[in-house]
């Protein structure tokens, strides 16, 4: 969905002026721009960390006491646990600044508290076991959806109004409009309940020992198939429309006309001239879409009981497991920022314009 609107803002590319001065400026520009991005992402990480600090303290009542009471019902709360929960969720009679410093110190030690629902387990361990599942699912589906959507978008945008385009463009709009959780539910119904082809929950056959055995890997693929299809179906439309619209704009550019006039093959004109430039907003969109895909993955995981952080998050909210919930919020936000930073840096390396005017 997000990628669709991209052309509104980005459709007026300022044509780079290829003068010697600009070239010189670009050299130093690249490092400076990257440095600025590092600064920005550090700042945004600070915003995420601070939000994580502020949210429980904004809530009515005293979440820390609620959590400690719940923990006490299950077993003895050690002073260390009490201290960490207090540092994370608030101390009523301490200044905010003081609390913030304690909170940061707590994070620096990597201590995110213990889970309420799975009592003695530290939340960092639980997140550690869920993260690889989500990471694998999200990265694989993002790459596939990007390639698929962009590829079809090239064909579709090269001849707007053609039969192919008049089928794919509305279809993409339609697919992009379907909510993740509903796609997931329907797939579950069709391919797991009605026609039991795929398993309906878990990340692998629980009877198997995790390891690099063919049986286990096969089981992982089988279990991951429906969640992956869900994410791809819901996100491919945005890529397709974004690429299509940029292609239409780019194909009308003079340098494409020139390439055609030179007698280059149509394939070469479309791929090396038009698509190559039309691709840039897509790559810029990649950075931003990661957050959306992660969000979608949270919902898909909840439906399929997939053992990633999304399912953990879902359970944490349903069970009122606040320590787990906050820790997941922080982990997911910081991971998304890191992924963004990587995608953004690639973009800076690819698009000379960002080096000039940023």
């Amino acid at each position, binding site marked *: 969905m997000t990628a669709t609107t991209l052309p*509104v803002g980005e459709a007026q590319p300022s044509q780079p002026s290829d003068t010697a001065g600009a070239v010189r400026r670009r050299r130093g520009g690249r490092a400076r721009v990257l440095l600025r991005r590092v600064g920005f992402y550090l*700042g945004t990480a600070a915003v995420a960390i601070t939000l994580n600090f502020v949210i429980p303290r904004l809530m009515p009542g005293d979440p820390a006491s609620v959590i400690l009471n719940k923990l006490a019902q299950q077993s003895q709360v050690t002073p260390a646990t009490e201290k960490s929960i207090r540092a994370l969720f608030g101390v009523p009679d301490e200044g905010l600044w003081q609390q913030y410093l304690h909170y940061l110190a707590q994070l620096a030690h990597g201590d995110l508290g213990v889970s309420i629902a799975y009592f003695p387990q530290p939340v960092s361990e639980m997140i550690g076991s869920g993260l690889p599942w989500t990471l694998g699912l999200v990265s694989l589906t993002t790459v596939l959806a990007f390639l698929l959507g962009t590829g079809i978008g090239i064909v579709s945008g090269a001849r707007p109004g053609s039969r192919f385009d008049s089928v794919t463009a509305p279809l993409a709009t339609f697919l*992009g*409009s379907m909510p993740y959780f509903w796609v997931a539910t329907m797939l579950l119904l069709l391919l797991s309940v009605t026609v039991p082809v795929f398993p309906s929950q878990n990340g692998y056959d629980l009877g198997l020992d995790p390891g690099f055995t063919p049986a286990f890997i096969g089981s992982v693929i089988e279990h991951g198939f429906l969640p992956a299809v869900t994410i791809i179906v819901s996100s491919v439309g945005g890529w397709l429309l974004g690429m299509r619209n940029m292609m239409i704009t780019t194909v*009308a550019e003079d340098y494409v006309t020139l390439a055609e006039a030179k007698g280059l093959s149509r394939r070469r004109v479309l791929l090396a001239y038009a698509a190559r430039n039309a691709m840039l907003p897509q790559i810029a969109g990649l950075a931003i879409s990661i957050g959306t895909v992660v969000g979608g993955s949270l919902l898909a995981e909840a439906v399929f009981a997939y053992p990633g952080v999304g399912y953990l998050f879902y359970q944490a909210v349903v069970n009122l497991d606040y320590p787990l919930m906050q820790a997941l919020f922080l982990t997911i936000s910081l991971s998304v920022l890191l992924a963004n930073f990587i995608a953004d840096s690639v973009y800076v390396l690819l698009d000379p314009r960002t080096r000039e005017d940023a």
Partner: protein
Amino acid sequence: MTVSPPLAPLTPSADRLTWRTALRRLVPANRKARVGLAIIGVYVLVAAVGPWIVQSLMGLSPTELTGDVLQSPSGAHPLGTTQDGSDVLAQLVVGTRTSLLVGALAAVVSTTLSVAVGLIGGYYGGTVDSVLGALTNAFLVLPGLPLVIVLAGYLRGRGGPFAVALVIGLTGWAWGARSKRVQTLSLRGRDFVVGARLLGESNLRIMLVEVLPNLLPVISATLMLSLVTSILAVSGLDFLGIGDLNSVSWGTMLYFAQQRQAMVAGAWWWFVPPGVAITVLGAAAGLVNFGIDELTNPRLRGAGGKAAKTRKPRKKGVR
């Protein structure tokens, strides 16, 4: 990368839009946008009078528990009943009102914020723009759903569906702010803005009278888009069971269908309609968005099927 003569601005020339011309332009000459708007209009109509028709005229209740449990569609219950014997059609229609109201509130909150931030940042430039831009980008890259889920997790239905709408509105403004900033930036140097400034008009007046009408196409696009994303987000929260479970909405319908194993029971009439309702609404907004892209970017216009043949931009002749 390329050497080419400067391009004509992509926005339609004779640039300046006043409030009147901008509003006239909002009734789009674009077929896709019209179809999309018509569908949204039907939804609004259903939300406005539907509950009254279904409840008073047809005598169906969305919440009443009857003995007619899990019945497939029939004359008495056009869309069948739920596990509790409530009527699905009544739930769907009442849910339309809830979902639209919540989505609209969230969309208005986030669009207002995005216009304010984008307009001020783009117009003033300099430090103001840097600060607002950094804030916008921060919220743009921070994943929205986890933040909303955490906040909703603490709210737990307190404050009703509108608290959730507010949370979604307050977290979802960044995307729109960016596109509005870019647009304002390109308008700032146009003759009519510079002229107004030379005439000594106040900054506020220039922003509201000269710049804002020109943003209207972008604003309406954002509004549509955020209406849909908000409805999707609210439905997602409701579906997970962390919204307001006492309200009847598309999301809570799906939540209860999932909880009561409607899928295993094969009760398709229970969980297909709310999903279709969300999808069709989303597709309608997609069409509007599409049409507005075509209006702001004339090169996309050629793609409109039959209409394209008469209005093909000159460039198409090259091929």
